């Protein structure tokens, strides 16, 4: 679901949102905070705060009360067009107003949302979607297949493809066909076994025919009250929402450009929840009565990227040596303050096909040294390009890597560049750098970051054996079979890939004990995935 968020985030980084850098300045430790929603942080060890338990009392959740939420950033550019949403505030606001056909639940399992049923033909070329009955828009009109056709034709309009288009792999506007009032057919030229992930994509939320973003009408849990871009927005509950909730009487989302201001507002009970709690403040919040930390394990990651077509990384032994240099546990503890879980040089940990039985890679400096020596790079000096744009913790991780590399006789010089430079012209050409990705399943991730056709193939990864496996998986609607192919492909990357995937980071938010319905969200989207309709006062 979140590849478009990343794309957007990268663009944002490239253009360097003022606000973001502001945050960066306030606290280098703020890690991924900069990227707000996007950069999740995650708990390697089990999430300590079982927030669900807090509100688990008997009977139904209490209704009423004014919920106030503090989130990161926001600017005059905040948009209420779900197909253009990029920043944390955009996503937070749009999640209230709109909904999508499918969606990831809080355990990162794909579920139907507006769709009652989604099915494909065996070749995965024709997908049929049937809407739930009795769905309606905020203005009372029913949600129909016309709206679905309108939505997806708008997204994949070849004249102006929107951010979600890439996730719908090759869908043409004329191939979105209304079958009846509740049924739509998607006819693909090339098979796509994971089109469902496209339906779950946040930028592919449903809009009504004749949509006008200045008067946003959606079918999400809340209706818009007052909206001041860059400052705050108020919402009232939508009675016709298909799922349970909302429970609160009204909702205010307040945007805080400044980290400390956000934390202060939370600790002084001006707001009930905040996203992106600075790690340094975790102990403060934990020690403060009535305030709780919401920590979610996610599949978000900040890899080191080695270009496999550039010396010395073109030698697989060097790549292997570099992976052996990393003491993942130490890196996790120093760079993420322990808020995350150790990774094994493979991404997409929640993918059903993820190979869980491969041995955990550990630091082995001796082996690293001998590999480097074998490769003829005994006294290696390399430059590692890093930037706050990747997230403050990325720079920290780079420092940890540099320090650990000393043990293997490798000198790592950090080249910390500005956001605009990092994601500027030279992005994707750095021989050795870092990047960030959100939770995503394997094939979607490959399409975004590892396939030769992927827009962000930082490592210039190209491996015929691997590519065949991935392409076949794309065409394979059978889950078990596809999972096997994915596992095989991931194993190849585990052995000779250009990424060092050392941890998945936790998303850390905070909430007031007075509210319930708060649950860690594995996708890395802050604050229960912004599903505030599930939140209620205790």
């Amino acid at each position, binding site marked *: 679901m979140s590849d478009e968020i990343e794309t957007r985030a990268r663009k944002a980084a490239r*253009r*360097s949102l*003022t606000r973001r*850098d502001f945050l960066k300045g306030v606290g280098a430790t703020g890690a991924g905070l900069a990227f707000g929603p996007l950069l999740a942080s995650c708990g390697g060890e089990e999430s300590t705060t079982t927030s669900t338990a807090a509100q688990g009392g008997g009977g139904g959740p209490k209704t009423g009360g004014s919920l106030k939420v503090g989130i990161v950033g926001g600017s005059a*550019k905040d948009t209420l067009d779900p197909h253009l949403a990029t920043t944390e505030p955009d996503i937070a606001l749009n999640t209230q107003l709109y909904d999508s056909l499918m969606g990831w639940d809080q355990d990162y399992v794909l579920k139907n949302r507006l769709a009652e049923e989604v099915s494909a033909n065996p070749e995965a070329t024709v997908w049929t979607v049937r809407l739930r009955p009795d769905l309606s828009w905020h203005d009372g009109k029913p949600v129909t297949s016309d709206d679905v056709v309108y939505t997806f034709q708008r997204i994949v309009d070849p004249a102006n493809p929107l951010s979600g288009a890439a996730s719908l792999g090759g869908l043409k506007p004329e191939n979105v066909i209304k079958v009846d009032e509740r049924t739509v057919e998607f006819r693909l030229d090339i098979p796509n076994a994971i089109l469902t992930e496209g339906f779950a994509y946040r930028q592919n939320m449903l809009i009504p025919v004749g949509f006008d973003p200045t008067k946003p009408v959606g079918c999400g849990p809340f209706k818009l009250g007052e909206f001041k871009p860059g400052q705050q927005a108020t919402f009232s509950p939508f009675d016709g929402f298909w799922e349970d909730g909302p429970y609160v009487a009204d909702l205010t989302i307040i945007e805080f*450009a*400044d980290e400390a201001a956000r934390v202060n507002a939370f600790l002084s009970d001006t707001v009930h929840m905040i996203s992106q709690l600075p790690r340094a403040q975790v102990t403060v919040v934990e020690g403060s009565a009535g305030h709780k930390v919401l920590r979610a394990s996610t599949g978000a990651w900040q890899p080191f990227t080695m270009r496999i077509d550039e010396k010395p990384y073109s030698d697989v032994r060097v790549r292997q040596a570099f992976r052996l240099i990393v003491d993942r546990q130490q890196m996790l503890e120093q760079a993420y303050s322990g808020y995350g879980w150790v990774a094994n040089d493979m991404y997409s940990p929640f993918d059903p096909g993820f190979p869980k039985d491969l041995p955990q890679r550990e630091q082995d400096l001796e082996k690293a040294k001998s590999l480097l020596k074998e490769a003829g790079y005994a006294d290696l000096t390399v430059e590692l390009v890093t930037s706050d744009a990747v997230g403050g913790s990325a720079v920290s991780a780079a420092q940890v890597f540099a320090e650990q590399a000393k043990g293997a006789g490798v000198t790592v010089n950090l080249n910390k560049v*500005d*956001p605009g430079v990092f*994601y500027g012209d030279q992005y994707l050409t750095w021989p050795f750098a870092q990047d960030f990705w959100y939770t995503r399943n394997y094939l979607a991730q490959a399409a975004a970051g590892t396939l030769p056709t992927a827009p962000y193939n930082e490592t210039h990864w190209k491996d015929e054996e691997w590519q065949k496996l991935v392409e076949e998986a794309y065409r394979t609607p059978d889950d078990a079979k596809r999972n096997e192919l994915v596992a095989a492909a991931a194993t190849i990357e585990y052995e000779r890939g250009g990424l060092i995937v050392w941890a998945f980071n936790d998303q850390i938010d905070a909430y007031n004990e007075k509210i319930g319905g708060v649950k860690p969200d594995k996708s890395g989207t802050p604050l229960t995935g912004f599903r505030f309709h599930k939140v209620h006062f205790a």
Partner: protein
Amino acid sequence: MPPLLKLILMRFGLGALTLFLVSVVVFAATQALPGDTARAILGKDATPQRLELLRQQLGLDKPVPQQYWEWLSGVAQGDLGDSLVQQGMSVTSLLRDRVKNSAALVLIAALVSVPFSIIIGALSAVWRDSKFDMTASVGNLTLAALPEFVIGIGLVLVFATNVFKVLPAVSRLDPSVSMFRQLHLLILPALTLTLAVAPYISRILRASMIEVLESEYVMMARLKGLSNHLVLWRHALPNAIVPTLQVIALNLAWLAGGVVVVEYLFGFPGIGQALVDAVANRDLPMIQALCLLIAGVYVVLNLMADLGTILVSPRLRTGLR
């Protein structure tokens, strides 16, 4: 032409010349930037056709002097271009509130520090070598030495985080609320600026007052049997203030730069903060606008100090040199 008028016109001319040169420097500097503005705007989406189109739209294909002229005439009409970062937003609209905020901050700092430091400086000179003078001197020396962020962090430690927790450590103004209802947010940043500026003014006033007190004409005034009151307030202080005017102007101009660090420190939404952001993001039109604005403040304040000096010193006013 009367010599006084000529003198004043000359100062204006010089001020205008400096401002013009400043604009050339700012434009030339940002023009010299390696990299392509069009590419910076379009980022990864850039296709050659779109780049070309955008360059045309931005006038980047025109000769440099013409670009400068167009930029300058835009500036003259209050059009500072569009932000590269916050696309579609004009620099002017992005800066409007920030300029107001910074102006308020600087104004408060100036209104507190100037009279305060003049009094301290004058009293130190009059009670030269007294305990008061010694204390003020050490205080001035210490404060003058400290970089403003050190003063600021010190104040935060004492008043906001670790000792007392009486004032906010962060001064993020709520734009929807009148500033007068958020004055408590301005206390620490304004205090930082005040403490950073006051020592300079009071030191220079002390020095100039001492010089005046040792002058022949003050000695003469004493030997004429004038009361202390007359000697100090009629003979000494007016002469001591004149050279201080320039320093006051310089320090007020410095405030415009000092806000950079102080606003960053307190997260205060002003021009200083905007400059740090713009630099970090290479938001050229924003940097151009801010540098021009800050340098303009300097030139104008200097001009005012020049004119003030002319008006208060008879030798210049009567134009006989």
